[in-house]
Structure formats: C-alpha cells, structure tokens
C-alpha cells in the first residue's frame, strides 16, 4: 500500500496531467515506431504488401492512428524539452510549471492542426 497520499487523494492539476500525458504519448510513440517499421518492411516486401499497408493507413482507423501519432509527436517533443529544463534545475516554480504545461498542450494542438491542414492542402490525405 502507498504510504503517502495516493492518486485518489490529490486534486487533479495541470502539471499532473502534463506528466501523465508525457508518459502516455511516449507509449503511443513506442507503438508508432512499429507503424514506421511496418511501412518500411511492406515497402521492402514489394508493391502488393505496400498497397495493402497504405490502404490500411488510408482507412478511417488508419487516419485515426496517424492523427493520434501526430498529437503524440508534438506533445512528447514539447514535454521533452520542458523536462530537459527541469533536469537542469529550471522551471520548477509552480507558476512557471503550470504555464509550460499549458504551453506544451497548446503547442501539440496547434502544430497538429497546422500539419493536418497542410497535409490536406497538398493532397497527402
């Protein structure tokens, strides 16, 4: 049993969410790397398997996965830089930590929107 106040005891706050999202998006990108490997392997295996893979990715479910991976890339990237600052001892004041947490989430949303609009505009979707 935990000897200090556990998850259920704490009020939900933004830095806690930022921390959980960092780990969750990391796990999502772990899976995402295998999507990249599947892409490369299907390309190496020949046109039939490549068309099958790209067909899967173009489906509704495939697009959902790619959208989730886009959010994860941008969130995890921003959160990683935030943690590099933490590692060097910078950014722990509650006000700063709250602000950078919001900034990471906002960056992920905006960058994902920009990339998907851009991808749609150049006919990649």
């Amino acid at each position: 049993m935990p000897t200090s106040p556990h998850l259920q005891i704490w009020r939900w706050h933004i830095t806690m969410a930022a921390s959980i999202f960092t780990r969750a998006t990391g796990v999502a990108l772990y899976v995402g790397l295998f999507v990249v490997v599947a892409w490369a392997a299907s390309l190496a295996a020949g046109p039939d398997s490549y068309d099958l893979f790209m067909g899967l990715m173009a489906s509704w479910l495939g697009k959902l996965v790619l959208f989730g991976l886009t959010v994860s890339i941008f969130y995890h990237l921003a959160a990683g830089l935030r943690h590099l600052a933490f590692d060097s001892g910078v950014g722990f004041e509650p006000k700063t930590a709250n602000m950078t947490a919001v900034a990471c989430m906002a960056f992920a949303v905006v960058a994902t929107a920009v990339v998907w609009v851009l991808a749609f505009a150049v006919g990649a979707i």
Partner: protein
Amino acid sequence: MDASNNYRTPLSRVRGLGSAKEGAHRFISERATGIALVPLSLWAVYAVIQVAPVGYEGAITLLQSPLNAVMASLLIFVSCVHMEAGMRVIIEDYIHKPASKIGLLLLNAGVCWLGGALGVFSILKVALLGVGA
C-alpha cells in the same frame, strides 16, 4: 573510524555506494537521443506528408535519395534506443516482482532491437536495391 579505512582516500570510500551503483549513462543516453529526435521527428512528419500520395514507385524513389535513406535509418535506430530507455523506466516504476520485471525488461529490449533491425534493414534494402529486388 575503523582502522582498515584510515589510509583510503575519500573517493575510494564512496565509490560504488550510490543508490543504483550504476546507470548515469542510461540517464544521459535517454536525454541525448531525445535531443536527436527533435529534428528527426520533425523530418518524419515532413516525410510522411511527402510519401503519402506518391504510391509504391514514388516511395522507392524517395528512399533512393541518400539524405532520405540516412534520415529514415537514423530515425528508426535512435527512436529504438530512446523508447527502450523510456519503457525501461516505466517497467522499473510499476513492476516490482523480480521475475516479471526481468521478463518485461528483456521483452522490451528484444522488441525494440528487433523492430530497429527490421526497420533499418528494410530501408537499406530499398535504398540500395530499389524496385522488385
């Protein structure tokens, strides 16, 4: 102080007494690969948009550019090192039963290295041999 310690230097007395006794290189490697993945993952987003509409032949052509082949190989290799480190920390945080922990750590390393090898091999095969090889 105990007599056997009288002639030891302060460094020799503390060496090896850290909490985990090793592991600084893991901390550094996770961060160094993280920094490398900033440009690599941004390139990946750009590359996916480029490769999505061009089909099989177009994808082969893109990977036959040395820059794309090197970036794709690096992306896969560095990602595997980084994600092996990240997942290792998650397993060490949540799984405390020694047998399960060791099993999951081995599985994690195996999956990451297998994925990395398959990915880089596939990229190089396409880059070097092209269509229908």
